[in-house]
């Protein structure tokens, strides 16, 4: 290999624009290649997601590409025994042998029942999944799929609820104009979340401008450290605090945006007292509101009572009072909400959250006043200047506040604060991430995301990451999937079924005629990312007959259970025509342009590595299901990528044509951006950009939809689910709390909060450090070294006073043990920056596998403390609880964890 330092005449020195793949933020990067070797990485100034800035993880990527511990050849397990601590005895095999073996297993599976094929994938390569996983699933004929850890820890609550309220994956302050934000357990704009780099720039600009940030978090997170005020809060109680704020705003300070509530929410919908359902117009079946001017009920979309744009004129509708409609005495939803939240007095909330009552009152007032209710600004739109509300405040949340058994309602409660003051998707307010609305590139009208109202008037997403939009809900159906997903329309993924020791009994009882057979894993290390590693391995992973894994490293997952490992290409070695989902997920935020980044190989896959999607195309061909696979892709693309395919770009479904992966990429791009903007064009800059309209950024008062503050449809869903559950005898397995399926938000305690034993006196929780993403980056020696530069990343953070009382010193080794006897070991880093009853652990550390030596033995492995039963699961969204009560005691550094069973 020649090195650039040798000044040869034929020197290659090029910068190749592509998209980072170290996490799910999808930042544009430029990669320097000198004489065929990747040597440097920078941000791509052409990409609005970052504009030339880039984070620590992306910069460290050369070591991901060239890590000598990468899987470079297909490997086959020769030890039939599986499990944690078992030597898999992998041997190298040829690609042909691997293909034959895998095709054989898939053929057998298809013969038995194609639904026995189960896909598991990582969140890091969020978009790659949509092709080789989702498309293939459809082609093969299996409904079984999940993103390990992803939805369980971060997504089920937040993404579902943000989808309902903002047609987006996440919410974020309009940093450019927001004056005060309340943040609940997240570090948005401070290195975490989606489009993290762009948000960090915006947040820094905002801080300099004078933007105030109040952060509720049990410890000094990155965001809290930059905040105007850090308010320590008991882990898992954010929902109670949010409802306390709603109560203060509505009942103490009487601050709310009546205009917004009347025309942009279902607050004025009249509610039947007998069953909590909407009062509906007999003729149209539409929900009704009370017209204060005409003094009679009207359907919600009656032109006289609707205001799409701010400058529209409409009759006032009732938010309070009791009205007689056809002999039924009914009240607007708002009146019910106002009454409902009265129980969240600041004093009660203080008991739950440990946040002083006066602080709650003060912050509510400050927030309400900063909302500047009534203020407007005029923005330029395609139809000339338009007046819209200015609401420069927002509440925000992410993983910390929503990773609990109260996840769904906590997310809604926190976001409710925004809707009370009208601070949603307008100037300065809480925004759906990636400005959730877009009309698409002007010449093609794609990719679009134009939400529309359902017949009940509520906001419906036009495109979404999954087949089904978050609202309206799927109809609960007798299950066909291995995780019984079909029955539960309010969840994305669930673990309590598949990780249960009674999984197969449940499959029997719920009349699932097939069993888990073959698993195809794409990039996930579910042994470490779902919860307790023994539970995951024993109850779930060992139930498969054959496991194929596409992977960069031999992780703990492969070591424990994989039969064949195929060497995947990393993001620097592959094409991806679309890295994200317009416009709900990691798209440019704020007023800057739209940008569609792509991945392209900076180097050809090294050794015998092959890109996952290339292999899936080939597997489909060898199985003879390529036509069906292409059909699956044709069906997958419209929902995910903002609009249907034109006929001429659709993949040929009858099997007469073999499409290469590059051809598929090219077709998608041409379809979205026109014949001249195919792969060859977008490769030049790595990103396709087009201007963003202001009315798409601040879309709330340009769109006819309303959002719910009263979740009437949860009642129906709960009743249907309960009926199905009972019909199959589900209660024999788990006792569901069906009362959570109701219309008004409440806070529910986690097991952590009701733990009575004084022995388990500490609240342990986990946070995400900016230097790592998921579990893979721990093997990157640049990032690992950087993590060691931080006093907390590989440590257990503990308050000085607490440690002193327990006789623990800085740097001591300790065990944390939960009431189930699961325990993790780590060293303690003492700090004043943590609520004294809490312990904070970062990242998915503590690898023990034999094939990731850099990652090995770094930091504590929090997830071993995460129980995976229904007791630790949100019944509404199936989000897992990631706080736990533990006891702390000193450890001998050489102690080895002994499995319980």
């Amino acid at each position, binding site marked *: 290999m020649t090195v650039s330092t040798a000044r040869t005449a034929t020197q290659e020195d090029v910068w190749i624009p592509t998209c980072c793949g170290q996490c799910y933020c999808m930042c544009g990067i430029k990669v320097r290649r000198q004489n065929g070797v990747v040597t440097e990485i920078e941000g791509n100034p052409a990409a609005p997601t970052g504009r030339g800035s880039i984070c620590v993880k992306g910069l460290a990527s050369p070591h991901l590409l060239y890590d000598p511990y990468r899987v470079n050849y297909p490997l086959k397990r020769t030890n039939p025994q599986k499990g*944690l601590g078992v030597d898999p005895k992998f041997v190298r095999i040829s690609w042909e042998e691997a293909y034959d073996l895998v095709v054989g297993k898939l053929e057998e599976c298809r013969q038995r029942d194609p639904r026995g094929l189960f896909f598991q994938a990582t969140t890091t390569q969020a978009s790659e999944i949509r092709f080789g996983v989702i498309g293939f699933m459809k082609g093969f004929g299996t409904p079984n799929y999940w993103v390990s850890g992803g939805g369980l820890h971060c997504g089920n609550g937040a993404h579902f609820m943000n989808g309902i309220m903002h047609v987006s994956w996440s919410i974020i302050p309009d940093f450019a104009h927001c004056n005060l934000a309340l943040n609940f357990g997240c570090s948005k704009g401070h290195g975490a979340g989606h489009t993290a780099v762009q948000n960090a720039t915006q947040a820094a600009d905002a801080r300099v401008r004078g933007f105030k940030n109040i952060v509720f978090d049990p410890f000094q997170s990155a965001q809290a450290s930059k905040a105007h005020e850090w308010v320590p809060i008991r882990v898992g109680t954010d929902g109670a605090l949010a409802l306390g704020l709603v109560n203060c705003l509505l009942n103490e300070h009487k601050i709310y945006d009546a205009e917004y509530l009347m025309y942009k929410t279902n607050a004025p919908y009249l509610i039947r007292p007998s069953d909590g359902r909407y009062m509906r117009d007999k003729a149209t079946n539409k929900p009704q509101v009370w017209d204060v001017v005409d003094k009679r009920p009207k359907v919600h979309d009656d032109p006289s009572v609707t205001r799409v744009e701010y400058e529209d004129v409409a009759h006032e509708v009732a938010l309070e009072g009791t009205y007689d409609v056809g002999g039924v005495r009914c009240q607007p939803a708002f009146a019910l909400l106002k009454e409902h939240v009265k129980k969240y007095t600041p004093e009660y909330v203080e008991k739950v959250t440990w946040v002083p009552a006066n602080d709650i009152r003060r912050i509510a007032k400050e927030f309400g006043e900063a909302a500047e209710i009534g203020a407007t600004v005029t923005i330029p739109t395609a139809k000339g200047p338009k007046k819209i509300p200015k609401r420069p405040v927002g509440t925000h949340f992410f993983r910390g506040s929503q990773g609990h058994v109260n996840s769904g309602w906590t997310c809604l409660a926190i976001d409710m604060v925004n809707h009370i003051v009208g601070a949603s998707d307008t100037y300065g307010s809480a925004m759906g991430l990636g400005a959730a609305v877009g009309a698409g590139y002007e010449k093609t009208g794609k990719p679009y995301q134009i939400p529309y109202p359902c017949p009940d008037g509520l906001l419906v997403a036009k495109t979404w990451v999954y087949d089904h939009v978050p609202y309206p809900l799927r109809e609960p159906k007798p299950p066909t999937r291995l995780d019984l997903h079909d029955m539960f329309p309010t969840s994305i993924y669930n673990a309590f079924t598949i990780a249960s020791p009674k999984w197969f009994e449940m499959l029997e009882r719920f009349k699932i005629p097939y069993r888990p057979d073959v698993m195809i894993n794409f990039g996930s290390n579910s042994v470490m990312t779902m919860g307790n590693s023994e539970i995951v391995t024993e109850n779930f992973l060992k139930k498969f007959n054959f496991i194929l894994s596409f992977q960069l490293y031999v992780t703990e997952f492969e070591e424990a259970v994989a039969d064949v490992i195929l060497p995947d290409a990393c993001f620097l070695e592959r094409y991806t025509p679309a890295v994200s989902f317009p416009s709900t997920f990691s798209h440019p935020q704020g007023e800057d342009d739209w940008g569609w980044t792509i991945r392209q190989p900076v180097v050809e896959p090294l050794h015998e590595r092959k890109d996952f999607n290339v292999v899936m195309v080939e597997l489909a061909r060898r199985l003879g299901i390529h036509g069906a696979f292409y059909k699956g892709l044709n069906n997958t693309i419209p929902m995910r990528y903002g609009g249907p395919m034109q006929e001429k770009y659709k993949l040929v479904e009858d099997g007469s044509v073999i499409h290469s992966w590059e051809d598929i990429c090219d077709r998608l791009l041409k379809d979205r951006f026109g014949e001249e903007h195919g792969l060859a064009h977008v490769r030049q800059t790595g990103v396709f950009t087009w201007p963003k309209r202001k009315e798409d950024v601040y879309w709330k008062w340009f769109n006819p939809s309303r959002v719910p503050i009263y979740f009437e449809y949860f009642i129906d869903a709960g009743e249907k689910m309960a009926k199905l559950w009972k019909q199959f005898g589900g209660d024999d397995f788990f006792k569901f709390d069906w009362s959570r399926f109701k219309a008004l938000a409440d806070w529910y305690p986690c097991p952590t909060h009701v733990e009575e034993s004084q022995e388990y006196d500490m609240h342990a929780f986990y946070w995400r450090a900016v230097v790592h993403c998921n579990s893979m980056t721990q093997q990157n020696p640049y990032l690992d070294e950087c993590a*060691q530069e931080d006093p907390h990343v590989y440590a257990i953070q503990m308050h000085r006073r607490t440690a002193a009382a327990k006789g623990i010193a800085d740097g001591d080794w300790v065990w944390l043990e939960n009431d189930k006897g699961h325990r993790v070991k780590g060293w303690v880093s003492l700090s004043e920056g943590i609520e004294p009853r809490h312990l904070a652990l970062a990242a998915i550390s503590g690898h023990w596998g034999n094939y990731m030596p850099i990652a090995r033995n770094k930091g504590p492995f929090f997830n071993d403390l995460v129980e995976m039963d229904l007791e630790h699961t949100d019944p509404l969204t199936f989000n897992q609880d990631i706080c736990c009560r533990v006891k702390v005691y000193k450890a001998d550094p050489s102690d*080895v964890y002994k499995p319980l069973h």
Partner: protein
Amino acid sequence: MDPNVNGQLQRDWGWLIAAYLFLGGVGAGAYTIGAINGLAAGGADFSTRVGLWVGFPALLIGTLCLLLDLGSPVKAVLAGVKLKTSWIARGFWIISAFMALSLLHLVLLEYTAVRGAVLAAIAVAGIVFAVGTMAYTGILLGAAKGIPFWRTGAVPVVFVVSALVTGHFTLLLGIVLFGGRGMAAADALELMTAEAVALVVGEVLAISFFLQAAFKQPDSRESAERILRRTSFVVGYAVLGLLVPLVLMLVLRYGLEDAAARGYRGTAALGAVLGLVGGLLLRHAVLVCGTLPTWNIAGFQFRRIARPKEPKPGIGLLPPR
């Protein structure tokens, strides 16, 4: 992980530099005392010869230690370029001059008949550069702005006193080993034990002053605390290298008195050897306890993170590979 990145401690100067500073001090100290004794004796006495036989070789070995520590020793020829500002450059010339003079002195004294004014002049010049060498070993550290612990006038004082003590002990040892059992040697020994008491007391005072001053400065306190937690310093240097020799010398001076007494010479030799080892341990301890200052801004005190010892096996499920 590289221990260099561990906290505020300097980890780049260790045993080799300690040996360099120590040998520079021993050689120059022994030469100085020997040469002064010689001048007092009107030419040379036995201690002058010991000083000469120790001085040049000690410096030679010390310089070798420095060369071994250099990252690029071939470029050592450039070491004297920046005489105007750099103490290493100055040291280069001072030590070179001292080595040249002491070598000349040795050759003239041992292998020629040159005596009298010429030799005295060379001795005086040699003493000047020997004192310069002793002082240099301390000033080198005292001029290092990055290590507040060193950056004090007390370090050169301590190092000069220690150089004299260790030089003196070297002469003492030389006389015990090679000085024969004659009256002259006995007289010299008796005188030297008395001088040693004074010198060691001087060093005790100097080191106490140095540490006390270090404790007063916030930036050097950590170093002072570290050095007092260090066994090689407290036991090796302070007790075995300083107090025990002091006691032994006191015993010799006031207990045995007569150098012909039984055990006198053995005790003297023991005290000298302990004192010499102590001198080396002192320099090493001062070096490795050097820490960078804390960086202060906006009410925060910033330090590099002191990483815990490498995580031990047993975090995960499996024992180490």
